[in-house]
């Protein structure tokens, strides 16, 4: 601090920073991107290790043998499901009761704000069935959970079969220290949300559900099971939850440890594990896996039923059985043993899972990147904004060229405040319009245009977004004629600091989202001035706007998944992603849509406004 309090040295430092501002910013940006790409490089990652001592090595032999019976039960369930034309509630209740569980049901209903065209549903009514296996000599204070969604068609029958057979096997064991809840939920995430809200007796999303009759205390961990074929070649683990929350890394370790124990092929983001870290192809494989995770996390969508648990401090993952045409096959018995092993270890837990990391990125299942390694990548990008702000501050505090007197300064400052506040207010009002209008105006849009409700919502959103660009954002033309040189500097200073705070907070909660937004928004924020050529700069700005970022992300996601899309398909998918984002917000309380609409987009509009200052 002595350096800064000495005026001469301070002046020298500041002049250095202002003189070299642009090169330093460019270096920071490149360093940030390079750091991020380097995260997947093996020497920079940490090896996975189990942090929770209670789940350390145990000399337990798994004895589950009823794999064949699980498939038979699954078939029976499939028959009953077709007969009932949905969830066979009575059959499930009977099946669980016969296996010695305490069985309860919960009915729920929910009207979506607009029809979900991907899943073809609008008015959702359903019933969850769950059975509680009471642990002997335990006082009902702790529970573990296994869920299997009852999906449409013949999907996921095997998961329900496995759940029932596991319940039967677990019931005849004496070593349980925690109750185990077996849940079959209807309508995927909506049913899950209803059950979780019922269990915790909260109502976050305005859903209607009947109160639960049976409970088992605090849920310590949960697994969601998705098996859709009799043959399983590999198991995939899904981690990304609502708002980019991740489960404790120990749960991932546990899964990986048991996959290794039973020689089961396990994949992450649909990608197999590789051992050739040193080779370029191994590195690119790791980068792709990590990028997929980043994109999925940034979406804030719950990628499996487990994603909704995380809000309630319940660590959960989804385990998916994959049947791709590989030679290697895993028997259902092995899958059952793997689950048995995981539950026996979770049963040993003395405290909630808290020892390991909650913030991490995975380039593979055997290595991870902790928060202390990936945060500098974002820090370097955020530093650009601060450097820019410093530069603007210095420019503003330098004595003005004309020295007219005190009165002039006062007038300037008052018009300056107005020229900052007006665009702030107008752009935020546009943001609020973008947030509220699409859902509220769908009926009117459907009446006047030949579109369905969902299309109406998405198209209204795009219309409001585009209209926001055309709005006059400042009043200085009407108040004081010309926008002053100082005026845009003040506005840009405010906007840059605003963006820095916004991205900083986002990155703390959901690193991936913060980083992706920073990648596109920081160059705009750092570079834009009113003196640039209008048309090319405007084109670049639109390309780097939040909506286009989303479009690129959708495209990149499918490229990385090795399912490339044509531009037409990408566009259609982009539209459905928008509607999905709005639905996620309404149904589960996902925050990405309001964040983008009410904070990020208005912030970007401020920079747009600076470009068209004169």
């Amino acid at each position, binding site marked *: *601090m002595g350096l800064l309090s000495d005026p001469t040295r301070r002046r020298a430092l500041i002049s250095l920073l202002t003189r070299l501002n642009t090169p330093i910013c460019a270096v920071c940006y490149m360093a940030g991107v390079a750091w991020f790409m380097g995260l997947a490089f093996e020497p920079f990652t940490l090896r996975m290790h189990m942090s929770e001592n209670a789940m350390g090595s145990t000399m337990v032999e798994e004895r589950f043998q009823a794999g064949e019976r699980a498939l038979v039960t699954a078939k029976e369930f499939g028959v009953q499901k077709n007969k009932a034309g949905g969830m066979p509630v009575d059959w499930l209740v009977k099946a669980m009761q016969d296996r010695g569980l305490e069985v309860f049901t919960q009915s729920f209903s929910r009207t979506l704000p607009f029809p979900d065209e991907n899943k073809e549903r609008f008015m959702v009514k359903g019933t969850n069935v769950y059975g509680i296996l009471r642990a*002997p000599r335990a006082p*009902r*204070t702790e529970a573990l959970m296994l869920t299997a969604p009852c999906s449409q068609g013949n999907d996921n029958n095997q998961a329900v079969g496995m759940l029932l057979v596991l319940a039967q096997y677990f019931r005849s064991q004496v070593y349980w220290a925690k109750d185990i809840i077996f849940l079959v939920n209807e309508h995927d995430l909506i049913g899950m949300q209803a059950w979780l809200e019922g269990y915790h007796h*909260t109502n976050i999303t305005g859903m209607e559900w009947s109160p639960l009759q049976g*409970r088992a*205390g605090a849920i310590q961990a949960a697994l969601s099971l998705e098996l859709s074929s009799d043959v399983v070649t590999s198991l995939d683990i899904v981690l990304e939850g609502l708002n980019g929350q991740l489960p404790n890394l120990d749960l991932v370790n546990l899964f990986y440890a048991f996959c290794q124990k039973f020689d089961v092929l396990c994949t992450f983001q649909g990608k197999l594990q590789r051992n050739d870290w040193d080779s370029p192809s191994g590195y690119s494989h790791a980068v792709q896996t990590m990028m997929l995770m980043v994109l999925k996390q940034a979406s804030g969508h719950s990628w499996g039923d487990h994603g909704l648990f995380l809000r*309630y401090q319940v660590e959960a993952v989804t385990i998916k059985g994959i049947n791709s045409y590989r030679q290697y096959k895993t028997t259902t018995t092995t899958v059952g043993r793997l689950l048995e092993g995981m539950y026996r270890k979770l049963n040993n837990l003395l405290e909630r899972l808290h020892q390991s990391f909650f913030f991490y990125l995975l380039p593979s299942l055997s290595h991870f990147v902790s928060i202390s390694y990936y945060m500098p990548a974002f820090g370097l990008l955020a530093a650009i904004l601060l450097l820019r702000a410093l530069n603007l501050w210095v420019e503003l505090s330098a004595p003005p060229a004309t020295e007219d007197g005190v009165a002039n300064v006062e007038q300037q400052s008052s018009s300056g405040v107005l020229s900052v506040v007006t665009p702030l207010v107008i752009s935020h009002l546009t943001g609020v319009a973008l947030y509220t209008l699409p859902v509220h105006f769908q009926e009117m849009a459907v009446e006047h245009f030949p579109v369905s409700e969902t299309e109406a919502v998405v198209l209204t959103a795009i219309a409001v977004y585009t209209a926001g660009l055309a709005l006059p954002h400042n009043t200085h033309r009407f108040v004081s004629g010309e926008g002053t040189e100082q005026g845009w500097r003040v506005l840009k200073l405010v906007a840059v600091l605003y963006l820095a705070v916004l991205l900083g907070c986002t990155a703390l909660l959901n690193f991936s989202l913060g980083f992706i937004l920073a990648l596109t928004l920081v160059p705009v924020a750092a570079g834009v001035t009113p003196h640039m050529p209008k048309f090319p700069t405007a084109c670049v700005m639109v390309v780097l706007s939040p909506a286009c970022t989303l479009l690129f992300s959708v495209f990149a996601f499918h490229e990385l998944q090795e399912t490339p899309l044509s531009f037409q398909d990408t566009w259609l998918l982009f539209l459905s992603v928008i509607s999905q984002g709005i639905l996620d917000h309404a149904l589960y309380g996902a925050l990405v849509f309001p964040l983008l609409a009410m904070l990020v987009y208005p912030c970007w509009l401020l920079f747009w406004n600076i470009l068209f200052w004169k």
Partner: protein
Amino acid sequence: LGATFLLFLLLLLLLLIQKHMIVQPLLSGFFQCGRHVERAHKLSHYRLFPKSLGQVISKFSVRELHISLTQGYWRTMQWGQPYQPSPPGAELWVWFQDSVTDVDGTWSELTNVLSGIFCASLNFDSINSIQPSASFKPLGIGNVTDHRFLRYATLPRETVCTENLTPWKKLLPCGSKAGLAVLLKSEKLFHSSFHSQAVHIRPVCQDAQCATTSWELRQTLNVVFDLYVSGQGKREWSLFKMFSRTLTEACPLASSSKIYVDVSDNSEVLTAQAVVLGDRRTFSVYDLTQKSTFGTTSSLNLLIRWKSSDAHMLRPLLHAERYVAGYRLQSGEIHTLMYNNHPYRSFPVLLLDLVPWYLRLYIHTLSVTSKGKTNRPSYIHYEPSKDRVKPHTLEMLVQLPPNSVTEVTVHFDRILLKWTEYPPDPNHGFYVGSSVVSSLVPSIVAMDTNATHECPLFNSFFPSKEETSYFVRLYTEPLLVNLPTPDFSMPYNVICLTCTVVAVGYGSLFNLLTRNFQIGEPRPGVAKRIANVIRKMRGVPPL
């Protein structure tokens, strides 16, 4: 498939010792209860009464003492009303004599002594003990009702195991050498779904005139065995299968030693009938004091096989459960649900809640609703907590309408403890003890007491004098509540360090931003200053 049974063991010692045991079918468990009653004229003369307890009673001027150690939760909906209700963990309630001046001091000393006797860690002091005003009345003679002499405390987390069973068995007159106690082999007893052992001491009348009083000691043991796990789903059990022992003789000191087997569902030998907790049951009786009971092999093994696979159980009329609502670490809501399953009669219940101080209850948010309408409690006794001194006590009398669910809710805030107050496993959560529901429940079964005359002891064990209602005490499940917990690990230190650095850095930066720096003249040297002072005195302009 869910066939399970109830075994109720009853050891009764009355002047001369008598022992009884009852076996009863349950929906999904095996239940056993041991009981032992003793009367002695004076506590200076120990024949059957254990001296260790006698000395405790006289030293601490105890009027009544009830202690229970329980592992597991009694599942009322599956197993019916409990014969000997007890909450999970340890429970202790004591009435002191009026002569005790320092009740709190005596109480904490007494709990320390009892911890030693029962090998338990009963850390009871004023932080977790309360004085219920109505829920726990003295069970023996004497009409003391001043609740200043009552202390009640529970420890929901106390685990019960062999080390607690051994001292309990040693209090029996024959130890585990003879009589029914032979069956109590810990290896088998702890392979069960529920285990509860208790000791009750109270003053009773010596005879009908009640001229002299004596002490009664009851030792009870409840165990529920799970036939689903051990019996491969068959409804069949035997003493040998359950305890891996058979009976050979009664305790020679016993005046009566009997086994009662509940055979209500396949009654072929009808020997005794009684109305137990509002339900008419049939028992067959095996008297261990008779030689003929043991037959030629001189060992008794009972094997009961049921013809039908489904058991009959009267649906419990009163049932209660409790849970924590809400999910954030700032606040929450305790919900207590009380079910009255009686088709047409309403009855009042007393609800007692003991909530530790680290949950800050907001009593103005207390709401009692049944059938969607507000239900005003006719009596409320509330003592607010004091941080680190005493817990909340909430007691209320609520009328439960027929066939209804009554919900009691109250909001609370979770407190951030001082960092030394956290236990070694703070992420496990903090326990809140069971709430106690006590009530006189109207009986559905019409009373027919003819059969019970055969067995007056049995009758006295289940006090069913009043024909229309019977007393029930229920305990809800304990709660495990997460409090905001710092991450006591490396990242925690890092966060502390970072915060310090940021705080220091912020201060300096703020200083730099708000101050205006100007270059000042350097200070003149000492000699120059002295010269200037002299020049000033001389009236000459300074250098």
